[in-house]
């Protein structure tokens, strides 16, 4: 089936793109197009104008700035999966990138696109939640930085204004240890049934000082399991503390039934995944 008719605007710079978007707030930015083109073809979306931002150099690039990691929104998932800086300073994101869809998709899909698509199962979201990431949004009016947990506002809805582009995502150099896991209905190229990213910072005594537990595919938006996190603070990663955290994580989940899994299965398994990630971290030392 062919794509519907649309106009394709091809700006050469970021400011041209922002201007074009300002002039047509109903236009959809397109980079890798791996979700957008599928939705257009399937007539789930109907934008008549697309703005091609896929080759804007200003949206590419990974950098370490004072105390922060910054990833341009146009960075592909493949680039993220093999970048040494992200493997070292954004481990759960690198993990998620390695198991994201399939190689040919990873070469085109961008982190900006994955976040904007705002699927409840977006694989980059739980890791970024665990990393306390911020989302950089730009328009012709200027730039703003939004904490990621304010970015997802509802099912497939973000806080991006119609004339804004998501231009980068950044996070402070993380402390502690992290882990990520997704469960899918097959071993590769599968939308997550549940996913989770966990980051724990412990002191020399092994007591948790910071805990981040982020869940995917079990709620309308990617969520942090804050009660589960709170249950770990001040405790070591003992069997009881971990089990309690997993229990709270299960309760945070508000999954639905769909073709990939039932709500009951998701709730049950997210608890298992969180528990296992915490156990994995518990077996390792205090820092990455």
């Amino acid at each position, binding site marked *: 089936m062919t794509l519907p*008719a*649309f106009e394709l605007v091809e700006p050469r710079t970021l400011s041209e793109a922002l201007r074009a978007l300002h002039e047509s707030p109903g236009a959809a930015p397109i980079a890798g*197009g791996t979700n957008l*083109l599928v939705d257009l073809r399937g007539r789930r979306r109907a934008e008549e104008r697309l703005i091609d931002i896929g080759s804007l150099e200003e949206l590419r690039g990974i950098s370490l700035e004072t105390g922060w990691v910054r990833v341009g929104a146009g960075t592909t998932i493949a680039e993220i999966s093999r970048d040494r800086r992200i493997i070292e300073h954004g481990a759960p994101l690198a993990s998620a990138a390695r198991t994201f*869809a*399939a190689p040919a998709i990873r*070469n085109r899909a961008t982190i900006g696109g994955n976040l904007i698509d705002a699927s409840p199962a977006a694989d980059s979201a739980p890791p970024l939640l665990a990393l306390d990431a911020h989302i950089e949004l730009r328009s012709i009016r200027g730039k703003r930085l939004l904490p990621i947990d304010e970015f997802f506002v509802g099912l497939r809805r973000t806080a991006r204004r119609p004339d804004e582009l998501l231009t980068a995502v950044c996070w402070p150099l993380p402390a502690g240890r992290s882990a990520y896991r997704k469960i899918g209905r097959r071993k*590769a*190229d599968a939308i997550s049934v549940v996913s989770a990213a966990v980051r724990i910072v412990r002191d020399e005594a092994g007591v948790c000082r910071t805990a981040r537990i982020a869940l995917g595919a079990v709620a309308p938006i990617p969520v942090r399991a804050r009660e589960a996190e709170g249950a770990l603070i001040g405790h070591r990663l003992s069997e009881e503390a971990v089990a309690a955290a997993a229990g709270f994580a299960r309760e945070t989940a508000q999954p639905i039934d769909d073709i990939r899994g039932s709500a009951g299965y998701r709730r049950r398994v997210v608890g298992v995944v969180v528990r296992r990630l915490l156990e994995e971290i518990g077996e390792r030392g205090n820092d990455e």
Partner: protein
Amino acid sequence: MSERTIRLHVNGRWRELNAASNRTLLEALRELGYTDVKSGCEKGDCGACAVLLDGQLVNSCLVLARQADGRSVTTVRGLGTIDDPNPIQTAFADTGAVQCGYCTPGMILAAKALLDACPDPTDDEIREALSGNLCRCTGYGQIIEAVRLAARRGHGAGEGGRDED
């Protein structure tokens, strides 16, 4: 909806075409005569349409033709011909990795992308590199063997085939 002329460097040869904004690279390539690029699902689920875009494996059904303007595309014909096949193509033919042949162009290009980046891959690396290319006939075993064989034989890294069209 506008059309504009774009140029694609396909298998070493510049091709010009008028591309409407909603034309995909898959459609453009097949219109230009590169029917070795197969359509299997038009939404990135199967890998049959995979090509190398500036050396990177992509599903051509999910690239707008205009997004490939000025860039280099390699289809499986660009790797070799019947009379002068690429070692990967020969290996696929030799190990029984080719049954119906429909997944084969995309699969071989995925193998090429892997071997270009990683000339001596493990079996797990091979499986992973091919994980976006579905095959319904072979069960993948002989395909993995073909990639191993191509790696041993020297896979023709960096070689492009001459465009015979």
